[in-house]
């Protein structure tokens, strides 16, 4: 499309000259009375912008050529940074170029006086270190630095360089407290072995350690300090060691034993040692939950110890599941209640800040996402969070959020530990791009390759290696992080980066999928500053009479309608241009019209409780309404009242309201919206219902099947601890009547379901009382209401924006690939099912008679004689000893047919042959499987994820197997209080097909045009029992 007027330019930081990506540029035409906004643009990573417009966007009576000025804002538009000094007259057909320089003071809040540079070395209690003691961890903190600038810290022993490492100053010009040298002296940068405490004291006692701070690439030492090493080791020490007391923070599961060394403890007759999941910091009052050994015993044991110095064997290494742990020691005092405390007490010896006591690694090769191949893909990006666990790996960040990286030394070639590497943040590359070119280009907004942080890879654990990578990330996009070991120099001084990703030496967060993304958060974003609120009642809108169902029934149509008389009441929110808008006529004029969302509540609910959702949707450009329904109404009556209110809204908003409807139903309303879609079509009511969200629905009024002529995109949201519509084993129905069944029966349009662990029926809106009152749950065991509400806001906004505004920025949320930051930061566990029409289904087990050896695509399924028993293909839900058919599982909430598979060796497998006519899967994006652990099965390790590998083999015999847990989880069923309601709930694992074609050292590539076999390889776990469905290739 050709525009009459064009302008472009670049926005720079006046102080540094660096381009400013991610700022909002608004162009105005200055007029006599009101200036016209002619266009807006967000600068890219090079600070560039382009705005094109036509005469109709500004023209008034005598205005042929616009007088343009530019205002520059922060990305969210809330704060103006700068306005261009003069207007510029634009002429048609001529592109005007602007260079905008933002003064330094505009980009940060100016402080009253310049901050002095400070640089402190601190101990675990955050006190300045006077002298160094062996075993203490040394922390660094600095202030008064130049923001967004990389600094180098060098450590010398008697003037000889031990190591150096880089840190990025944050937006306030500080380096937050970070580990500089964990467990000082126990490891030696110049020695290959670690020392015992006594050896370390001998080695370091009396030595002078000098630290210097420089700007990266600079020669001037900005700050320095020298500390002497004491002849005593630090008190209250506890670390994992070998049998001789040598520091050993990580062990392989194939190691023989797990030892702890302690020193300087307070005297006690007995000590309790607990192995707990790792968290960044431990404070008095934090909850302590010891893990279980593989044997099932709790990792909580008592010992008699020599409080001065002792080494004890805690466990056999192979009795501990792989993972990151901390160790807590509790002195046991006879009779004291605190011995049983579930919380950290002042007497407990807890780990150093940020320091993981123990990492139990899997076998180096088993841990790889590609079986037998060496791609060092692992999570690096993460965020700091308030509250436990204080730091969490993350792959989604909100615009403006700090991106941290924590590098795990345990996944690299062991020869690379205690070496230097350079940490690149680059735009994410596709598989084709990586295969073509492995060069690395650090983001220009971070200073380009010259400013890449060069860091020393501390041995022991990932949390010694945490660095701020991108302060205030302000450019939307997908990115990878690469740790480049360059020339692999044995000394810090000799390190040279090579700007290239080289497997297997270098580490990457990315490659198979994007490492992390920066996106606007749909849970917190807004397009409109102001919203209007119009509430109406029967006083103005009258009373409706609608058909309803008199009660629950099983067969469609199996009821006699009753008439329900309902007051027409609703709360309505809409975008506005100014505060105080209370009438539909005051809807914002910035758009011609707006899509509409209507919320249909459930029984026992109140329509006024959804205002927080309505307001958020209105800020995102929707007319959003919540309608009143009488207590006791069924699903049909709720659907009919929805139509009544759509008529009211259409009349009230007129041309400002699009015939573009989204509906959200909760509980009985959640089933009612399915009926609404069906009735809208069958009665030709003419509403364009483009999106349906169903929250904790009933499945009690007939048997709704969304699909066919009224197929509609669907998002189902359901809590695992729903105390109202909780389902449950043992009823006599053909299915557990929850949202799972409604989801399973929906066809013909894209659908997604989020199963929220510890979520409840009402916690997504108001409170968790359903779970505590009817579900037997303790409040502390549930996801908090703010957490569930965060899910509500983010997912509902993203879903409606996707299907009503074609805004596809958040597609990955609904496949379960990532969560927005507002949800991810809560730590909530969510498991997704996802289906897109047009998938190539290899087997969905729906063919009858049930025959597991014949797939629904018409080819052979075999276990090659490996499985201990034949897989069983049958209806998912079983009611043992009742009037209904036998099925696979009394705990399955699914409505349909699937496969139950059990294995007892990591050599077991199940293979689906693919017919020649279907061998070309290159047009698809993923291989997908729906999968669940069977609840109550003795073949699944308690409270542990299951995993396996999906292998594709082509016609040449080239095969590659990808680990499922590289892309999703197969979680242990949520153990809610009422055991009969625990569910074998399936979720999708989606593996990108590029995983099978991207270059991977030691592995062949699979020809996706000629795929002949899809196999489930039941490795690495020795046993398991799972239910599967929907084995397919999909987009």
């Amino acid at each position, binding site marked *: 499309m050709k525009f009459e007027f064009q302008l472009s330019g670049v926005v720079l930081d006046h102080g540094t000259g660096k381009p400013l990506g991610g700022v909002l540029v608004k162009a105005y035409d200055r007029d006599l009375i009101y200036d016209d906004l002619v266009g807006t643009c967000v600068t890219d990573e090079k600070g560039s912008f382009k705005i094109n417009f036509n005469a109709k966007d500004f023209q008034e009576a005598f205005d042929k050529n616009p007088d343009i000025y530019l205002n520059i804002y922060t990305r969210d538009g809330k704060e103006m940074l700068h306005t261009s000094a003069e207007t510029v007259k634009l002429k048609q057909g001529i592109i005007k170029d602007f260079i905008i320089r933002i003064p330094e003071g505009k980009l940060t809040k100016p402080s009253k006086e310049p901050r002095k540079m400070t640089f402190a070395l601190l101990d675990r209690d955050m006190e300045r270190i006077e002298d160094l003691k062996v075993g203490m961890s040394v922390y660094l903190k600095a202030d008064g630095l130049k923001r967004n600038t990389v600094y180098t810290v060098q450590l010398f022993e008697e003037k000889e360089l031990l190591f150096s490492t880089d840190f990025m100053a944050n937006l306030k010009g500080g380096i937050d407290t970070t580990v500089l040298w964990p467990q000082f002296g126990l490891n030696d940068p110049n020695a290959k072995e670690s020392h015992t405490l006594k050896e370390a004291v001998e080695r370091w006692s009396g030595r002078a350690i000098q630290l210097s701070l420089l700007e990266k690439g600079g020669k001037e030492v900005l700050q320095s300090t020298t500390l002497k090493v004491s002849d005593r080791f630090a008190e209250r020490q506890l670390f994992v060691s070998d049998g001789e007391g040598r520091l050993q923070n990580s062990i392989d599961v194939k190691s023989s034993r797990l030892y702890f060394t302690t020193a300087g403890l307070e005297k006690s007759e007995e000590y309790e040692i607990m192995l707990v999941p790792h968290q960044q910091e431990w404070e008095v009052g934090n909850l302590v939950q010891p893990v279980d050994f593989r044997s099932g015993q709790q990792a909580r044991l008592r010992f008699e110890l020599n409080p001065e110095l002792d080494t004890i064997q805690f466990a056999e290494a192979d009795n501990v599941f792989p993972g990151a742990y901390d160790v807590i020691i509790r002195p046991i005092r006879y009779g004291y209640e605190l011995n049983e405390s579930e919380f950290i007490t002042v007497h407990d010896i807890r780990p150093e800040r940020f320091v993981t006591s123990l990492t139990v690694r899997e076998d180096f090769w088993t841990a790889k996402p590609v079986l037998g191949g060496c791609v060092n893909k692992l999570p690096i990006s993460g965020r700091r969070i308030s509250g436990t666990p204080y730091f969490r790996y993350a792959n989604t960040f909100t615009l403006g959020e700090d991106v941290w990286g924590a590098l795990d030394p345990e996944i690299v070639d062991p020869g690379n530990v205690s070496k230097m590497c350079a940490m690149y943040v680059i735009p994410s590359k596709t598989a084709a791009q990586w295969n073509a070119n492995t060069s690395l280009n650090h983001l220009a907004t971070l200073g380009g390759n010259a400013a890449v942080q060069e860091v020393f890879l501390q041995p022991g654990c990932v949390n010694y290696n945490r660095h701020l990578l991108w302060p205030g990330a302000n450019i939307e996009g997908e990115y990878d992080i690469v740790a480049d070991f360059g020339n692999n120099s044995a000394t810090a001084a000799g390190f040279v980066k090579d700007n290239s990703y080289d497997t297997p030496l270098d580490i990457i967060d990315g490659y198979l999928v994007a490492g992390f993304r920066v996106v606007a958060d749909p849970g917190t974003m807004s397009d409109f500053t102001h919203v209007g609120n119009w509430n109406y009642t029967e006083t103005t809108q009258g009373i409706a009479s609608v058909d309803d169902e008199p009660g629950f029934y099983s067969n469609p149509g199996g009821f006699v309608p009753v008439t329900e008389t309902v007051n027409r009441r609703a709360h309505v929110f809409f975008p506005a241009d100014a505060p105080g808008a209370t009438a539909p006529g005051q809807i914002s004029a910035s758009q011609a019209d707006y899509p509409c969302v209507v919320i249909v509540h459930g029984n026992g609910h109140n329509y006024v409780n959804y205002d927080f959702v309505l307001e958020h949707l209105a800020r995102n450009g929707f007319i959003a309404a919540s309608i009143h329904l009488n207590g006791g109404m069924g699903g049909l009556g709720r659907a009919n009242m929805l139509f009544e209110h759509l008529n009211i809204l259409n009349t009230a908003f007129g041309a400002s309201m699009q015939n573009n409807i989204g509906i959200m139903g909760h509980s009985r309303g959640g089933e009612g919206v399915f009926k609404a879609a069906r009735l809208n079509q069958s009665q030709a009511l003419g509403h364009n219902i483009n999106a349906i969200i169903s929250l904790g629905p009933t499945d009690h009024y007939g048997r709704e099947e969304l699909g066919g002529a009224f197929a509609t995109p669907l998002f189902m949201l359901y809590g695992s601890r729903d105390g109202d519509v909780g389902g449950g084993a*043992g009823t006599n129905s053909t299915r557990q009547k929850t949202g799972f069944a409604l989801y399973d029966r929906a066809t013909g349009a894209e659908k997604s379901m989020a199963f929220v662990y510890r979520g409840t029926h009402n916690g997504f809106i108001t409170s968790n009382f359903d779970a505590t009152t009817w579900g037997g749950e303790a409040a502390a065991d549930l996801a908090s209401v703010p957490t569930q509400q965060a899910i509500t806001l983010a997912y509902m906004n993203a879903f409606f924006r996707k299907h009503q505004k074609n805004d596809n920025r958040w597609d990955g949320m609904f496949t379960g690939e990532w969560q927005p930051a507002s949800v991810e930061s809560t730590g909530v566990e969510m498991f997704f099912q996802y289906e897109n029409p047009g998938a190539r289904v290899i087997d969905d087990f729906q063919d009858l008679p049930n025959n597991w050896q014949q797939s629904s695509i018409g080819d052979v399924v075999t276990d090659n004689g490996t499985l201990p028993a034949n897989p069983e293909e049958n209806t998912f839900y079983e009611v043992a000893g009742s009037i209904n058919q036998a099925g696979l599982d009394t705990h399955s909430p699914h409505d349909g047919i699937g496969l139950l598979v059990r294995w007892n060796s990591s050599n077991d497998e199940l293979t689906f042959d693919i017919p020649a006519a279907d061998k070309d899967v290159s047009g698809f994006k993923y291989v997908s499987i729906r999968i669940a652990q069977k609840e109550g099965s003795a073949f699944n390790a308690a409270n542990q994820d299951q995993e396996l590998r999906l292998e594709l083999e082509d016609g040449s015999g080239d095969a590659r197997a990808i680990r499922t847990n590289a892309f999703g989880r197969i979680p242990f069923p949520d153990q809610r209080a009422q055991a009969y309601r625990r569910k074998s709930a399936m979720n999708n694992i989606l593996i990108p097909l590029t995983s099978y074609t991207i270059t991977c050292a030691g592995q062949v590539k699979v020809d996706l045009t000629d795929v002949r076999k899809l196999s489930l390889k039941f490795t690495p776990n020795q046993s398991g029992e799972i239910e599967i469905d929907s084995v397919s290739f999909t987009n």
Partner: protein
Amino acid sequence: MKKKEFRYIEEPTYKINCKEVIKELNGQSHLLCRLSITATGDSFIQRAMEGVIRIMYSKEDYVYSWFAEISHDGRTLHGYFPIDTKVSDWIEYGYGETIFRVIRLKANPENAMLDKSRLSKELIRVTDDYIAKVDG
């Protein structure tokens, strides 16, 4: 009318445990008798009113906890009593001055005592007199 199968929701059950414990209060170690009620199928809610446990000897004769605490997971209510409190088979709990539930046991639960020879002399032994002095 067609038959339909129904499921019974199980009644909550309660376990009683009684023992002497040393508890740190205001920085000092106190010896107390602790009676704990652990619920299955029920939970103890944190609310404005304080929890309370009563040990009943008869309808008119009872003792009640000096104070009570609810465990983190809401499953257990701990009531703290003076040492040498006799336990009975009739236990009640509630909030404020309202009794929510009466628990009748088949036998008196045991009160597990600590070995006094292993206790510090500085330990404060909480008795009725001590409580009266502290509470004023």
